[in-house]
């Protein structure tokens, strides 16, 4: 594989995934937590495409396409929920959100 090799791609994917997990655990702003979740999606797509290249399957590309689709749908719903949170109360910290009232 050009440049990094299989191990390099796997390491990059693992580091990005762990950065996403750490972002969800450490940060309390809902927007940043959603972005950390998107980081995890990207790391998973990189891993899937790496192993698709390793074995020569195009099924990995379909899987990565589904990752992008589901990530986009989840970002849309997540942002709508965040807008609702900010509409009812000025909640910039997920510790302050007690109930979602419409």
């Amino acid at each position, binding site marked *: *594989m050009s440049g990094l090799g299989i191990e390099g791609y796997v*390491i990059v994917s693992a580091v990005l995934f762990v950065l996403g997990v750490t972002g969800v655990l450490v940060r309390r702003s809902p927007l940043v937590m959603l*972005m950390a979740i998107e980081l995890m999606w990207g790391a998973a797509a990189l891993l899937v495409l790496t192993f698709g290249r390793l074995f020569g399957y195009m*099924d990995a590309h379909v899987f*990565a396409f589904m990752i992008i689709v589901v990530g*986009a749908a989840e970002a849309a719903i997540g*942002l709508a929920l965040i807008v609702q949170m900010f509409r009812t109360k000025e909640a910039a910290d997920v*510790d302050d959100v007690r109930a979602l009232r419409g």
Partner: protein
Amino acid sequence: MSAIVVIAAVLAIAGGIGVIAARVPVHSVLALILTLVALAVLFIAAGAEYMGLLQVIVYAGAVMVMFVFVISLLTARREPVERPQSLLPGQERAGYVVGLVLLAGLLTAMLRHVYPEPAALPAGYGTVRAFGTALFHEHVFVLQLAALLLMVAAVGVVLLMARRS
């Protein structure tokens, strides 16, 4: 060629660190866009040209723009900042420790194997034609489910945003 891939990998990780370290949400979005574009470069280097293209157009081009719109609409008056101290004492430190432990576990599990040499690729691997053939011939059910999921997400967003007045 390989220097570009190494630079893209470093930029992707730097963007990931920028997402969780930025104090202002707009900086986090910019760092995430950097990560996604660097990931697209890595995709193309791994032979997935169409996926790299889709990543830039759809993920970095549409989803991140949605983030920027929401952030700019929500924080027009003031920047939302978190509490300086978490309600859970020691949350940040515990989060970093858990992250390091998870990284050690993942790297141990993944690097223990000896990976085979990359297989000889079929002609046209990663092009639009090969992707379309795979999507529409073998995985057409997955395509229908993706369409259904997107429609449900769109209807859900409209329902969530409708005011009851």
